[in-house]
């Protein structure tokens, strides 16, 4: 046991748990190998994490850092940061309908008209900034009083 710890670097449970998990994951990957467009699955599997870790996260963290530096006060930062983050989150999740990437497919299968997503997203974005601005002014007055 002590030797395992020395050579492996952690507890036996750590090793057993990982071997079990990797074997189960291996089963799933093996089933996928014969399925349609397995290369495309691999591309999405790796692409998704690369897009997040090396593009999305540095992008929003960078904007946040620059924005924080430009802001007049620490107090002001969050009144900009929060509505911007919420609006960006909606766009991140729903960009296929907001930017009409998939609305024609939806129209085709459902027979209903899918429109107005971009407009509604802009209205909600406007509302978020209005609420934030009102809170900024009201709380600023209260702090000054």
């Amino acid at each position, binding site marked *: 046991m002590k030797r395992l710890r020395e050579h*492996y670097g952690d507890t036996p449970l750590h090793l057993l*748990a990982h071997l079990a998990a990797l074997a189960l994951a291996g089963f799933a990957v093996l089933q996928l190998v014969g399925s349609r467009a397995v290369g495309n699955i691999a591309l999405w599997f790796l692409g998704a994490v690369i897009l997040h870790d090396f593009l999305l996260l540095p992008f929003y963290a960078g904007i946040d850092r620059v924005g924080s530096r430009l802001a007049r006060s620490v107090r002001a930062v969050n009144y900009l940061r929060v509505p911007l983050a919420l609006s960006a989150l909606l766009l991140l999740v729903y960009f296929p309908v907001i930017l009409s990437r998939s609305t024609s497919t939806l129209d085709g299968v459902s027979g*209903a008209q899918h429109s107005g997503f971009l407009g509604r997203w802009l209205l909600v974005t406007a509302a978020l900034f209005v609420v934030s601005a009102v809170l900024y002014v009201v709380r600023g007055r209260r702090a000054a009083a």
Partner: protein
Amino acid sequence: MNLARLFPATAPPGPFRPGFFKSPLRGPWLTAILGSLLLVAMTIVALTGFLSHAAYMPDLGRNAIVPAGADLPLTFGWPLHPSWLYALNQGLHVTLGIIVIPLVLAKLWSVIPRLFAWPPVATPAMAIERLAIGLLVSSAVFQLATGVADAQNYYLFKFNFVVAHYYGAIVFVASMAVHVIVKMPVVLRAYSERGVLAPLRDDLAHTVPEPRDEDGLVAAEPAAPSITRRGLLGLVGAGSGLLLVATAGQTIGGPLRRLAFLAPRAEQPGSGPNAFQVNKTAMGAGIKPKMTGADYRLTVGLGNRTQAFSREDLLGMPQRTETLPIACVEGWSTTQTWTGVPLAELARVAGATGARAVLVESLQPAGILNQATLSRDQFSDDRALLALKVNGADLSLDHGYPARIIVPALPGVHNTKWVKALTFESKA
């Protein structure tokens, strides 16, 4: 075994250097609280996902989309009570899967310094753990991205969504389980040292970095805080809340449907008794007018014996009215009042009350979902209908005229539309 020798002792410049990541909020407690919330949410999302797989009854007929016998042996007879069971299951799966996204983003943000740990591996244990973490993050982002894309019918991918999402879920569950086992002691230590909720009470003046940790989450050269920890969690919560409002109405219906401002299937098509969501139009399914005209006959068979019924014949049989939901795998649902012949009555007419299952085939010429097999429990339930009318009017062509299946708690697409044949499978 010291693998650190494989790498230069000094970290390359950039994110590998201590001091690169500045946020004073990162630390074991923040990651623990985000991880704990995520554990609860993801467990429900994963569980409802596997339940949905079981609800398709992949062991029957040609129901399996994931190749038969190549799935986990976790399927069972899907219950028929309550009738909104599948609507609830899918509403939870899709809505929770969407509102969990800000939490996932925050969790990944909180541990990003670990991606750039130096040396990248020091022991075999660290190597195998990093492999498992790689699978966890990849599968989590893959599952969320493909699920969100599919719910919006955004088919940027070339693979079969069901197959990839099913096996992706297995990779996710395996890697999440091992991650929870390995990290639970770190989580419990963070809670015992800092308290479970105590750090949420700190205002900005008291928002100081946690003590330096061995995992290197805590910034070596922290910047001054610009948001509190409760502020960050509040932002995550607000994001989830906003996504909930934007989405949930397509499942819950009623006045909330109008509130679901970004849900892809919240639109109410037209007006009248047939004005509710269509999964696939007759035109999209390749249904031609002459298929459903006066020459239409429903074939009901058991073995070699078959009988044919016109729509008038079916309207002359005992009728029953039931209020039942259609719930799509994509998360939207709609409850309507259906009238038609009980499937149990058709089984009786066919002399097939003891049949093991019934194969339902559609006039729809192509597609893997132009047929579905129902179990005996399903076709013998009193509320299971071959519906001819909805809300008192004839079914519209888009809703399956001349006749469609409607069974309680059945996944939406298995409520086959434009039914042309019911073939009962005898016991043997």
